[in-house]
């Protein structure tokens, strides 16, 4: 808000840019293992930017949500995912349904769309981070794209989790985060969802001997 802290808001903008870059990297990354690492890295950037915002604005509750991000999205979820792919023995490269250059081009179009959509909202928001709202929305749409273009179950779920990251970033940049009780609830949902998905992966594997969701295309309108 004050021009006295240009450095800190520049750091926030830098971190937002890194977040967007990571979203693009995830969009093009085909190895599941690297995908998980990118996801963890995205969580770390998110955590860092939340801490910087908390420090800049003196919103103490943001420290707690940064801590929660660190515990859940940097440590616990990647750990679960790593364990899961080891147990399921899925190391193969992920084939996309659309080739990489096309995906990138669609991604760029989505970013432009997101910036335009976010423009009127960020003018209303009174936060120092409002400029990053466009990036947050872009990251949401990019994770969306990732879920659409991937044919394997694990990358789809990583896309889902990264969308959650982006939404969290949006909440931080638009309003300095949601009320604590809501954030706790969301974190609980994500965690439970991950556990249920873990169970679910094993069920799919048991049934199809593969985690390719193209097996899951029997139910159609005829």
């Amino acid at each position, binding site marked *: 808000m004050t021009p006295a802290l240009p450095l800190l808001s520049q750091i926030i903008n830098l971190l937002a840019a890194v977040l967007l870059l990571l979203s693009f990297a995830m969009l093009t990354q085909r190895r599941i293992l690297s995908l998980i690492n990118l996801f963890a890295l995205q969580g770390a950037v998110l955590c860092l930017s939340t801490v910087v915002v908390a420090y800049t604005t003196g919103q103490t509750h943001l420290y707690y949500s940064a801590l929660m991000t660190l515990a859940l999205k940097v440590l616990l979820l990647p750990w679960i995912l790593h364990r899961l792919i080891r147990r399921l023995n899925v190391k193969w490269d992920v084939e996309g349904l659309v080739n990489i250059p096309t995906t990138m081009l669609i991604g760029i179009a989505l970013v432009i769309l997101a910036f335009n*959509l976010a423009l*009127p*909202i960020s003018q*209303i*928001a*009174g936060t120092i981070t409002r400029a990053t709202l466009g990036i947050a*929305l872009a990251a*949401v749409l990019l994770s*969306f794209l990732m*879920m659409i273009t991937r044919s394997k*179950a694990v990358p*789809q779920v990583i896309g*889902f989790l990264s*969308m*959650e990251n982006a*939404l969290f970033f*949006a*909440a931080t940049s*638009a*309003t*300095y985060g*949601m*009320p*604590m*009780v*809501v954030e706790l*609830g*969301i974190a*609980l*949902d994500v965690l*439970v*969802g991950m556990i*249920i*998905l873990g*169970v*679910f992966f094993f*069920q*799919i594997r*048991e*049934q*199809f001997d593969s985690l390719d*969701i193209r*097996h*899951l*295309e*029997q*139910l159609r*309108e*005829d």
Partner: protein
Amino acid sequence: MELAAVLALPLLGGIVLAFFGHRRRAAEANAAFSLATFVAAVILTAGIVAHGPLRAFGEQFFVDSLNVFLIALTTFVGFTTSLFSRPYMRIEQEHGKLTPGRLRLFHSMFQLFMFTMLLALSTNNLGILWVAMEAATLTTVLLVSLYRTPASLEAAWKYFILCGVGIAQALFGTILLYLAAERVLGREGTALLWTQLDAVKDQLEPTVLSLAFVFLLVGYGTKVGLVPLHNWLPDAHAEGPTPVSAVLSGLLLNVALYAVVRCKVLTDGALESDFAGNLMMGFGLLSLVVAAFFLSRQKDVKRMFAYSSIEHMGIITFAFGMGGPLASFAGLLHMTVHSLTKSAIFFAVGHAAQKAGSQLVDDIRGLIKANPTVGWGLLLGSLAILGMPPFGVFASEFLILTTAMQQQPWATPVLLVALGVAFAAIFGKVQQMAFGDTQVRPLPHPPAILPVFVHLALVLMLGLWIPPYLAEWYRQAARFIG
């Protein structure tokens, strides 16, 4: 106090049944927990009717005439479903479709699902509403894939991903709403409380709120099953166990629509235009028409009735979109009768499919001959859902149609055609299933057919005579929706 009981009982039930849900008396325990929840909800309802809206636990919970009626309905259908599932799941187990472990999962998740829906209904915090809606998806994912067949796994995966993505949109909508709210209410953590927002809704920033409503409608609309976000719904209903189909169709869709209505009240207040209503009318009509035309192509009976749910949700969304006391009244009445009738139909269909050993319409024949109660239950339930007088669905659909003629005349032909197409599609198929000759096997346990007729009797009563206090209650809620 009653509110705490309404929430604590299913939560406790979920935890207890997670440990003992495979024991011999687990189904009875499940029913007992559901009955206790229902009793608590009735006491809560009586309190609200007598003393007006209730705010509890530092305003974190808010119960008024709108949600208390849904709480009563939810706990009632939850109770009858638990009665129905007792013999149904026992027969499934004897047919070798279920192991004791999965039965335990079913009982536990059923109670937790009730808990999440009741939490979503009673919370005053729009953030918690989101959390509860997401939790409702999570508790039912493993129920949809309970049989572990390829088709059920696919249905559950689709359900999880589509509803997950949908509900993420609703989270973004909630964030935008919070952005608009904190400018007026400050950052004290009360800015997401619905009652607080309602008090200042005319000061909320219109541009942000209209964008927020679009995201919220798309997000919660995915769970309502509005076209084009409905793809998960027929699969999840067809592949999950029938008690799950009954509560998904009869209750979860209502709860999601309730969330949309709450958001609409705020948006209307901020915008002072029909933006939200027009969007809802558009989505509602589209759902109605698309579902009606898909109905005739269905071969699976549960899938067909799932499409019928989309159709009816479309009608209700349309009614709330029109707005005004009369349309909202009709919408609330339709919510009630649809939920009672549709769950009754799923109960009857469940037993019919168990008898025939198949869910395909072509495999189910001569139900009235083989088992008159199941056959008549299905036939009467279908007539009721198709809007035949004197059932309650007729009353509410008639009311919606006449209101549409006055307020939105252009929509009436669309409504009439869609209802006609749906009638032809469903009646043709149900008639084949009900009449004719058959050699179906008798069931090893007597089916729980009482809930079917209790539901239908209530729907019949609502068609002939709405008790004055109930009418007053709907009127209060309808005034409030505006």
